């Protein structure tokens, strides 16, 4: 589905990603975990064409996308739920979702949009309740749901999420991860980027650990969860676990 080879990305003179290689197979949930500033957002932005790499290859379903525009990449079935939600604050919830459906209109699948809208409302009933409200008036958790719903309206084959749990209460966070699992079980391939390593790895099949721009570890989710280094660096102070009162 997605294959990245030796990706180098820099902002001006500052190199942020160094020789990053990874792949995501069809139907998998892959997690990329790493601390703040590791380069996770940059990686996703590069995949969607918002940032251009200095070197390396990115292939989506075998097609090179290093030079494709963001619009094109989205039309090819790769959608990003960006960091910080980025909903259209001054538009209604429903209009936000319809904007997400733009590529479906372009594909000539206009008739499916109504059903897709119902499907998103099914995943997130609160969005249906608030459909005529301005997106800017929603709570953080609801905005995250809206951002996910908007991305799903494009019917992506690869859904990428950038720290969906950021700034959310533990209960809401659990809801979000459960929905990601559900979307994946319905056949959508998922690339999930998180600082919250434990929650991410729990729903993932495989994972990568990104540290200051390099992939330092990779393996199945179980391997990573059991790995001493990962435990020390990323799982030691997991707020979520502490609040749930488990060891």
């Amino acid at each position: 589905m997605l294959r990245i080879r030796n990706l180098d990305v820099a902002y001006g003179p500052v190199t942020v990603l160094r020789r990053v290689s990874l792949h995501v197979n069809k139907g998998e949930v892959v997690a990329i975990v790493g601390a703040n500033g590791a380069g996770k957002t940059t990686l996703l932005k590069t995949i969607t064409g918002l940032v251009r790499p200095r070197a390396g290859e990115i292939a989506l379903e075998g097609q090179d996308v290093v030079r494709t525009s963001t619009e094109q990449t989205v039309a090819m079935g790769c959608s990003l739920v960006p960091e910080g939600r980025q909903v259209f604050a001054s538009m209604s919830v429903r209009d936000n979702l319809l904007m997400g459906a733009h590529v479906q209109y372009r594909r000539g699948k206009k008739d499916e949009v109504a059903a897709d809208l119902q499907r998103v409302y099914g995943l997130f009933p609160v969005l249906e309740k608030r459909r005529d409200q301005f997106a800017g008036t929603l709570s953080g958790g609801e905005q995250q749901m809206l951002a996910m719903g908007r991305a799903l309206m494009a019917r992506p084959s690869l859904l990428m999420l950038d720290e969906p749990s950021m700034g959310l209460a533990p209960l809401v966070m659990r809801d979000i991860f459960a929905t990601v699992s559900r979307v994946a079980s319905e056949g959508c391939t998922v690339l999930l980027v998180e600082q919250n390593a434990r929650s991410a790895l729990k729903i993932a099949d495989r994972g990568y650990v990104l540290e200051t721009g390099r992939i330092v570890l990779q393996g199945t989710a179980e391997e990573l969860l059991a790995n001493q280094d990962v435990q020390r660096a990323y799982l030691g102070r997991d707020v979520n676990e502490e609040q749930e009162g488990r060891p």
Partner: protein
Amino acid sequence: MAGELFFQYLIAGLTYGTIYAVVGMGFNIIYNATGIINFAQGEFVMLGGMTAVSLHAFLPLPLAIVVAVLVTMVVGALIEVTFIRWLSRPSVLRMIIITIGISILIREAALLLWGQDVRALPYFTGNEITSIAVGGARISPQVLWTLGACAGLVVLVTAFFRFTMLGRQMRACAANRVAASLCGLPTRNLITLSFVLSAGMGALAGCVVSPITQTQYGIGTGLAIKGFTVAILGGLGNSLAAVAAGLLLGIIESFSVSLLPTAFKDAVSIAVLLAILFARPSGLFGARAATRP
């Protein structure tokens, strides 16, 4: 002040006010889409009027106006494509300088093309002495044309942004450009469209008002300042507030003539602009600035 005189001032104020409103709304459309204050906005009004006058030499009036509006829209698109599109993250200062440069360029081109003559389209109905009685005062039918056309334009543009898919896409692009491109929206073309739309609005306003105010290659600068004042007065980005602010400024200007020498008319709007910038930079309706058209 006698009732009839009061009414005359009010009507004159409203006539100019609607033009300011349309120019202010044009400012906002481009500002919302790009964050750019387009100081060439007034040139669209001038181009619309001047082109229509030239075309009217061999085309019937309605057709001349339609073609003039289309020509100005093309100019709007060309401006965006040649000067704006390829800039990535330009600073505000750079953008201001670029749009002022564009306005000078258009003005000089107009001077070459049309000279310094003052021109005007004929009155749409009747002539300069035709008048109809409204509430005891006599007003020119052209005033009604202007008020009607501008009101129609405001309603249409507002409905376009609110109810059509393309209009919503432009709003999405204005609200968050990165998110819009992540939805697969063609953000660059939507930005070009915002230039086309505001050029068309300005041009139409320039046509309907030209029988009353007349037009000349240099009228754009003054209009840009008025339009900018109106856009700021309404709170940048808030199109409907700009309409209210436009009418207000037109009326203030018009009544100022009864107190001050006519030469001070333009100084009044500059004074209003400065007062607003000092006292209420978020505009008179600042609190509502979050709700876009």
